[in-house]
């Protein structure tokens, strides 16, 4: 068991090192980075911000991991977020109770996911195209719901999902953590993990082995849609309003980036949901660091590009056997010294 853990740890090495490096740079940019205090019964600090702001992307990344592992991609998550947020806000304003609102918003995400899934699994459209359709039209649907304006609401029950806290922990973090544990448990305790990897690596062979790959794909995309809807609810609740124009804009790229930084290949196959979440945290830590650094915003994108390149270099260095090489070097040097 412990050998397995160390193996997993070495595999996660580039990501963990990247995270540590970014956190350290953040600390240099802002010495109070690691301070955490209690504010109105809620944890408060930059580190908490990283997790809190990262929560929607973590949630997206969980769904996206499954999609990417099945050798697909879902470009529509940002638009689905906007739809679910818009629906939640307008329904709340029209006076529906919170549980119904949440269910409806999640249901909308499910429908979107099913639509994508049907196009991919049953109509055999390429995932990127299939989801591009909803990416374009979905935001339009969200705007149609809000009629282009920001729908503001004041329902404490819904707002709680964005800014509330439980035992001092902000709700978004809690929800993300919960979903993460749940998703990992489902993947580990059922055969889904293996089967998803299997269709991602070789769909034809999986079908020959008697696997219902179409249904599985449908479920994967539906799940991704629900995750996106959840993230959409959180974002809307956070700003107490649904901004159909901007909610989740370009977040699909962040989610994909998180998954890839987490080490899942865009060509499908082996995946780790936990590592994707770690990837999302790395990205958010970088974003927060840029905000804290005080650099003029003109440099944001360049900083982001450089960080991504550094992480990728570290990753490919290790996947090309760089660490083993270094370790070998190190060991033989150590041996020389003795």
């Amino acid at each position, binding site marked *: 068991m412990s050998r397995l853990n160390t193996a997993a740890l070495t595999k996660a090495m580039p990501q963990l090192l990247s995270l540590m490096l970014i956190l350290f740079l953040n600390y240099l940019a802002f010495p109070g980075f690691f301070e955490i205090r209690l504010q109105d019964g809620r944890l408060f600090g930059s580190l908490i911000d990283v997790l809190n702001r990262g929560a929607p992307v973590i949630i997206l990344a969980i769904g996206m991991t499954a999609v990417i592992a099945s050798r697909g991609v879902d470009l529509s998550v940002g638009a689905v977020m906007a739809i679910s947020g818009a629906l939640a806000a307008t329904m709340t304003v029209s006076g529906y109770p919170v549980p119904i609102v949440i269910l409806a918003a999640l249901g909308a995400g499910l429908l979107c996911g099913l639509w994508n899934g049907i196009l991919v699994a049953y109509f055999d459209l390429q995932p990127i*195209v299939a989801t591009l*359709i909803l990416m*374009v039209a979905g935001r339009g*649907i969200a705007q149609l719901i809000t*009629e282009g304006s920001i729908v503001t609401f004041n329902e404490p029950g819904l707002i709680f999902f964005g800014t509330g806290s439980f035992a001092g922990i902000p709700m978004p973090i809690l929800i993300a953590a919960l979903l993460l544990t749940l998703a990992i448990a489902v993947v580990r305790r059922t055969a889904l993990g293996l089967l998803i990897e299997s269709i991602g690596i070789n769909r034809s062979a999986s079908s020959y082995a008697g696997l219902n790959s179409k249904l599985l794909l449908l479920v994967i995309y539906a799940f991704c849609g629900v995750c996106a809807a959840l993230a959409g609810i959180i974002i809307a609740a956070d700003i107490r309003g649904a901004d159909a124009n901007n909610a989740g804009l370009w977040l699909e790229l962040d989610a994909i980036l998180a998954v890839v930084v987490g080490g899942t290949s865009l060509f499908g196959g082996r995946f780790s949901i936990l590592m994707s979440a770690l990837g999302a945290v790395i990205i958010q830590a970088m974003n927060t660091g840029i905000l804290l650094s005080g650099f003029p915003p003109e440099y944001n994108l360049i900083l982001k590009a450089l960080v991504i390149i550094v992480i*990728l270099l570290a*990753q490919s260095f290790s996947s090309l056997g760089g660490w083993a090489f270094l370790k070998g070097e190190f060991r033989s040097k150590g041996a020389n010294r003795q």
Partner: protein
Amino acid sequence: MNTRVLPLYATLLICIIAYAACVFQFPAMFSTRVAGNLLTDNAFLGIAAVGMTFVILSGGIDLSVGSVIAFTGVLLAVLITRYGVHPLIAFAIALLITTVFGAGMGAIIHYLEVPAFIVTLAGMFLARGLCFVMTTDSIPIDHEFYAMLQGLFYRLPGGGRLTFIGLLMMVVFIIGIVMAHFSKFGSYVYAVGGNRTSAELMGVPVARTTIGIYAMSGFLSGLAGIVFSLYTSAGYSLAAVGVELDTIAAVVIGGTLLTGGVGYVAGTFIGVIIQGIIQTYIVFDGTLSSWWTKIVVGVLLFSFIALQRILVFLSLKRTTATSGG
């Protein structure tokens, strides 16, 4: 008939039907003006899409296209207006930089085995970020050479214009088609997209090809940037946001598979024109709100793809039936 070209014919057929349907609703759409506009307005998109076709044929993707277009525009504006460089020299500098930029991405993709999606995403951030660093203002370019190029057009009967940039796009497409089907490089691109390992085992120079593909995409993005700057006579750091998705959509509507190895450059041209028709239709309609515009674009996109699949399916069935007897 070779089944590989079916999507191409299907797309062409759809394009013609779509245009006919538009003309039926708005007779004014049947004019040389609209036809000329389709070429001029989509020139930069088309040029970038040729590069994207090669990238996608090789099984990759290039997300940096839009940013590189903006970068080129800003660079040209800065060079020409601030440093007084002659546009032709500025063009050469810009093309050199974007080509090297593309080649660099290709090298990272090949040698470090990082997915193209991520490398070009970083490239997208980098190019856009460099725009901001050069200037956040939009800079107008006022130069007689620009005016001369913009004044170059052939007036079609009926008031339409066949502009220089529209023609340039056509030329790029023709070169692209010839390269894809009648050059060794083209066959290598298809080979790498078909199966990289096999290509390697068959002795295809995969490294050179990959770097070449992204260099070419960089070059064409740069050229698209030049065209865009001619189109708007300005450099603006927020220009061409999301153009990469438009080009990808054009390539895919044109029947190229994102998995690589299958598709035609000519199909991309039709893809670009179809997108142009959608845009023109929406303008002619003029009643669509922002959100209905998005929804309609999505629905049309879906119908095109669905129709394409149905047509391919039907004709496959027909050829099956005849040769099966």
